[in-house]
């Protein structure tokens, strides 16, 4: 399923998020995939997903500037593709 900013998402329960100075390390225990989230704001977005009715709302809640939205959406799409986040 293609990533959709208007859908609600959540962090996959098999995923561990470990905050680091640069953002976070994310490890999916099921598929053994390791990802680096390279911005603290992106980490915030990921944490906010399950509290909002859409990914777009989560971007707003994290204060993603308008000029950065496409970039963050691409990052979320990437995370959806590797099953770090899924639609709920």
């Amino acid at each position, binding site marked *: 399923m293609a990533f959709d900013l208007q859908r609600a998402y959540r962090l996959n329960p098999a995923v561990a998020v470990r905050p680091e*100075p640069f953002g976070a390390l994310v490890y999916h225990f099921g598929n053994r995939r390791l990802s680096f989230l390279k911005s603290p704001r992106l980490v915030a977005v990921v944490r906010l997903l399950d509290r909002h009715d859409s990914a777009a709302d989560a971007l707003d809640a994290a204060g993603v500037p308008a000029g950065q939205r496409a970039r963050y959406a691409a990052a979320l799409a990437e995370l959806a593709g590797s099953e770090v986040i899924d639609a709920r």
Partner: protein
Amino acid sequence: MPVDQAVLAEHPGPDSTLTGRFKRGLTAPICLTWELTYACNLQCVHCLSSSGRRDPRELSTAECQAVIDELERMQVFYVNIGGGEPTLRPDFWDLLDYSVAHHVGVKFSTNGVRLDRRAARRLAGTDYVDVQISLDGATADVNDAVRGTGSFAMARRAMQALTEAGFGEFKISIVVTRHNVSQLDEFKQIADACGARLRVTRLRPSGRGADSWAELHPTAAQQRLLYDWLSARPDVLTGDSFFHLSALGAPLPGLNLCGAGRVVCLIDPVGDVYACPFVLHEQFRAGNVREPGGFTRLWRESALLLRLREPAAAGACASCGQFDACQGGCMAAKFFTGLPLDGPDPECVLGHGERALAQVCLPDRPRAAPGHSRSSREPVFLGQIAARAAT
């Protein structure tokens, strides 16, 4: 919608490269190697930990559980359990279960001695555990020359058991030597036939490896062959062993940097913490987990590990255009061949290491402690272990 300030983390200084970001230090290792015991039924000629005899000061079951508890709190994702032969610890299976129950994924490295059908079935029913079988030859003659008579057959039996039990994709890990680099295709065939993932790693002059490295390490021509072979097969794992070959072309998959003290480290059977498994030497020992503050304090505050996280001086490599790619290669390879750490890797693809080696005074090279080698090189096998247990 108001910005949720409470969720935003602290901002670091500007350092935009991925490797730059965590060269400054992570809150915990990403993964680490934990040698559970120095006991081993084999006496491989190149053993990096000079294993063989159990050390009487081994961490107890309770102490091991305390380490796992720390790793859980630190959110270490994955631990490579090795040894010696880790399955020789009577509490091995309990510790495996304990680790998984405490959210620390496990890969364990084994020569297969205890991996019979029953063990394989038990593993097939356990999630979050990866199994890695060590093999150093695609045929018994090549393998056993390094690992001992019968070790090839033992490893093959273990692989068979895992395949038949439906374990799924286990790993077969080889250390590349002058004598097995011609067998790369055969290794791949063995892995494919078992439904396993092949892993190809670098020989280091560590532990017993120091004595045999000069004869066993691949030649420059063989390194190039290896690099080309790996480049064509991105599905073959390497444990990021070959970043020293990055000057040959595009870097192989992986972080392509020395992880020692930065993203990895080692805990040894008596609780000593070293920068990585290839530098079991006092100069690279950060402390012991039995000290106050345990492993956590060592990772975050020990002088050794903090020093390793500082940018490395290029030294003699400063004028070489390839330094950014290879970063001067492997610290362990330099240390145990007697080369300065701020200079070329002994296997530098431009030949700078070979020239530097010619300057080394061999008797002055650092030597690892005698370790835990058994006096006899003959391996001990399952039948003999069972017989001993019965007496």
